[in-house]
C-alpha cells in the first residue's frame, strides 16, 4: 500500500508543484502573492475540457489522441499565458509604486472576479471531461501506476526540467534572476523590467494551465471553484519550500502531495486537508524561510 500511496502522492504533488512555481516566481520578482493564480489554473482546466470536447466532436481525437491532446495543451498554455500578462497589466502594474498591500487586495479582487466570471459564463455545475484515456495500469508489485498518472508525472518532470534549464542557461532566465535579486539595479543595467515581469507572469500562467489541463484529465471534472482550494494549497507548497525559490517550490509541491496522501492513508482521511497546513506551521517554526529559503539581507 505504501508504494501506491507514494504514487498517488507524487502525482498530486506534481500538480501542486507546477502551480507553486507560478506563485514563487511572481513573488521572487514582485514580492507579491498572486492570489488570482489559482483562477488561471481553473481557466486552463475549463479550456482543456472545452477544447477536448470540441475536438472530440469533430472526430479528431479518434485520429490521434496524442496529437490532439498535445494541441489542446499548447493552446491552453498560450491562452493562460496571455491571461497572466493581461492580469499583470490590469491589476498589478498600475499599483507598482503603491503601498505593499494594494496589489494584494487587487489580486484577491481579481480572483473573485474571475471565479464569478467563469461561473456566470460557464454555468455553476461541474463540467465533465470526456473519458478518452485507455484504462491501462502498469502493476509494480502490489501497486498500480495508471497511464494517466505516468503521463502526469512525466509531463510535470519535463516542464520542471525545461524551466530549470531556462532559468539557469538562457539570457532571459538570467535577466529574470537579476530582476528578482534587485529590481532597481537590474533596470540600471539595461534590463527591460516591464518585459521581464510580463514574461514571468506568462511562464507562471502557462505552467498553471498545464496543471489545469492535467487535473481536467485526471479527475475528469472541472468546476469554477477548483482554483480556490488548489491556489491555497499551492501557495502553502511555495511557502513550505521557501517562497521565491524555484527548486523550493518544486520540492514543496511534491512534499505537500506526499503528506496529504500518506496522512490521509495512515492517520485519518477526515483531516486530509489539515495535515499540509500542520506541516507548514511546524516547518516555519523551525525554518522561518521555508525549507530551501535563504535569509535575504535587509535592504539598506
Amino acid at each position, binding site marked *: *500500500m505504501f508504494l*501506491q*500511496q507514494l504514487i*498517488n*502522492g507524487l502525482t*498530486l504533488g506534481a500538480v501542486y508543484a507546477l502551480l507553486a512555481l507560478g506563485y514563487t516566481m511572481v513573488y521572487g520578482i514582485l514580492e507579491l502573492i498572486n492570489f488570482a493564480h489559482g483562477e488561471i489554473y481553473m481557466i486552463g482546466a475549463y479550456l482543456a475540457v472545452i477544447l477536448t470536447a470540441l475536438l472530440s466532436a469533430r472526430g479528431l481525437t479518434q485520429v490521434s489522441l496524442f496529437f490532439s491532446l498535445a494541441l489542446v495543451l499548447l493552446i491552453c498554455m498560450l491562452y493562460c499565458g496571455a491571461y497572466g500578462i493581461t492580469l499583470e497589466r490590469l491589476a498589478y502594474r498600475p499599483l507598482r509604486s503603491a503601498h505593499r498591500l494594494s496589489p494584494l487586495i487587487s489580486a484577491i479582487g481579481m480572483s473573485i472576479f474571475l471565479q464569478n466570471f467563469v*461561473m456566470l459564463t460557464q*454555468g*455553476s*455545475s*461541474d463540467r*465533465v471531461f470526456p*473519458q478518452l484515456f485507455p*484504462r491501462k*495500469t502498469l502493476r509494480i508489485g502490489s501497486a*498500480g501506476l*495508471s497511464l*494517466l498518472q505516468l503521463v502526469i508525472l512525466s509531463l510535470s518532470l519535463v516542464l520542471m526540467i525545461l524551466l530549470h534549464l531556462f532559468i539557469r542557461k538562457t539570457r532571459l532566465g538570467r535577466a529574470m534572476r537579476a530582476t528578482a535579486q534587485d529590481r532597481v539595479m537590474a533596470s540600471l543595467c539595461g534590463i527591460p523590467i516591464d518585459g521581464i515581469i510580463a514574461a514571468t507572469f506568462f511562464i507562471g500562467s502557462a505552467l498553471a494551465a498545464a496543471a489545469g489541463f492535467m*487535473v481536467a484529465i485526471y*479527475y*475528469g*471534472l472541472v*468546476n469554477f*471553484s*477548483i482554483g480556490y*482550494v488548489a491556489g491555497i494549497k499551492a501557495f502553502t507548497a511555495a511557502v513550505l519550500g521557501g517562497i521565491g525559490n524555484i527548486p523550493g517550490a518544486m520540492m514543496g509541491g511534491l512534499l505537500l502531495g506526499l503528506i*496529504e*496522501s*500518506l*496522512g*490521509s*492513508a*495512515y492517520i*485519518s*482521511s*477526515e483531516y*486530509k*486537508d489539515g495535515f499540509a497546513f500542520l506541516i507548514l506551521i511546524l516547518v516555519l517554526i523551525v525554518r522561518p524561510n521555508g525549507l530551501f529559503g535563504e535569509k535575504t539581507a535587509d535592504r539598506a
Partner: protein
Amino acid sequence: MCERPQLTRSGLLCKLQKIILMGIFVRWTYLPWPLIGFLLVTGCNHRAGEIRIGVAGPMTGDQSKLGQDLQRGVEVAVEEWNQKGGVLGRRILLEIGDDQHDPKQAVLVANKFVDSSMVGVIGHFNSSASIPASSVYHEGHIPMITPASTNPQLTEQGYENVFRLCGKDDQQGKIAAEFVVNRLKAVRVAILHDKTTYGQGLGDLFRKNLEELGRGSFKVVYQGGITQGDKDFRGVLTSIAEARPDLIYFGGIYPEGGLIIRQAKELGLSAPMMSGDGVIDPKFLEIAGPAAQGTYLTFGPDPKAVPQGRRFVEKYRTRFGAEWAPYAIYAYDSANLLITAIEKAGTTDGKKVAEALHRVKYDGALGRIEFDSRGDIKKSPYVVWIAGTGEFKEYWAPPE
C-alpha cells in the same frame, strides 16, 4: 468659512462644522430620491393579490442540478394551478432562494423568506440546510415541506410546521442493511461518508443496522470521511483496498460519489459501491462513466409505476427537454400538497395551513400521501435500485 489653523482644538471643531453642514446639504438634496425609488421598487413587489411560495435549495455550486430539479418540479405544479385560476382566487408566485447547501446561507434564505411573508416554503434540499432553516420557519410560523432532506433529526425537533415528503435515513439505513445481509451477503463492508449531517448520519445508521442485523458475522472493516468539494480520493481508497472489502457503502451526494467509484475502479478495487438517495442522479452516471455500472442505492419506489407519476415524467420531458429528475417529482408533490392545504385551510395564515397539512390526504405522483403528527409521511418504503448503462433501475424490494 473659518480661517483658523487646522491642528488646534477650535480648528478641528471648525472643520467638523464644515462637514456637518455639507452633510446636511447633501442629505437634503440627494437622499429623498433614492429612498423614494427604493420604496417604489420594493413596494411594487407586494402586490396584494398574489400568493408567494418560496423554493430553497442549492441553486448554484456543485449541487446546482439538484436545486434546479427542485425548482422545476415546483414550477410544473404552480403552472398547473395557475392555469386553473390559482388558489383562493389568487395567482401563485414563486421566489427562489439559493442556499448553496451551506447551513449559513440556508438561514439567510429562511430569514429572507420569513421577512417577505411567504405563505409556505418547498425546501430545503440538504439536511444540513433544512435543519437550521426549519428553526427560522418555526419562529416565523411558515410551513415548510422538504422533498429531499432525510436526516431523522429534522422531524424530531417537535416543530408543527415542518414536513417531509421523502423517507428518513434510519429507514434508508435499515433497508440498505437488509439488502446487504440478506441479498448481497457482503461480509466485509467499508463505510465512507462526506462529513455532512446527511452523509455521516446515513453512514452511521447503516452501520448500526448492519451490526444489529448481521449479528456478528458482518464486519465493518473501514470507516472514514471525505471532504465535500474534494476531487482526489485515491489516498483513502487505497487504504480501503488494503482492507479487502466486499462492499463500499458511501453516505453522500453524487459529485463525490461519482468520483469515488470512478477512482476506486481505476485503482483496481472491484468491490461494488452502495449509496443512498444522494447519488440517484444522471450526473452520477456521467461523472463515473462505465465505472458506475453495478452501483446499488436506496430510493423510493419508481414513480413511473403510478399513472400520475408517468404523466408528470411526460410533462417534465416536454416542458424542460430533459429526462425526469428523481427529486423533481418529490418537489412537484410537495408543491401540490402545500397548495392543496392552502385551499383546504381557506387562508394564507401559516399556522392554519400547517394544521391543514397535518390533516390532508392526497393522491399524488408518488401515490397516496398523508403526514403523521411529526411531519413524516405515514408510508415511506425504500427500495434498492441499481445503476445500469445510462439509467437507474429498481432492483430489490424488502419482502413484506
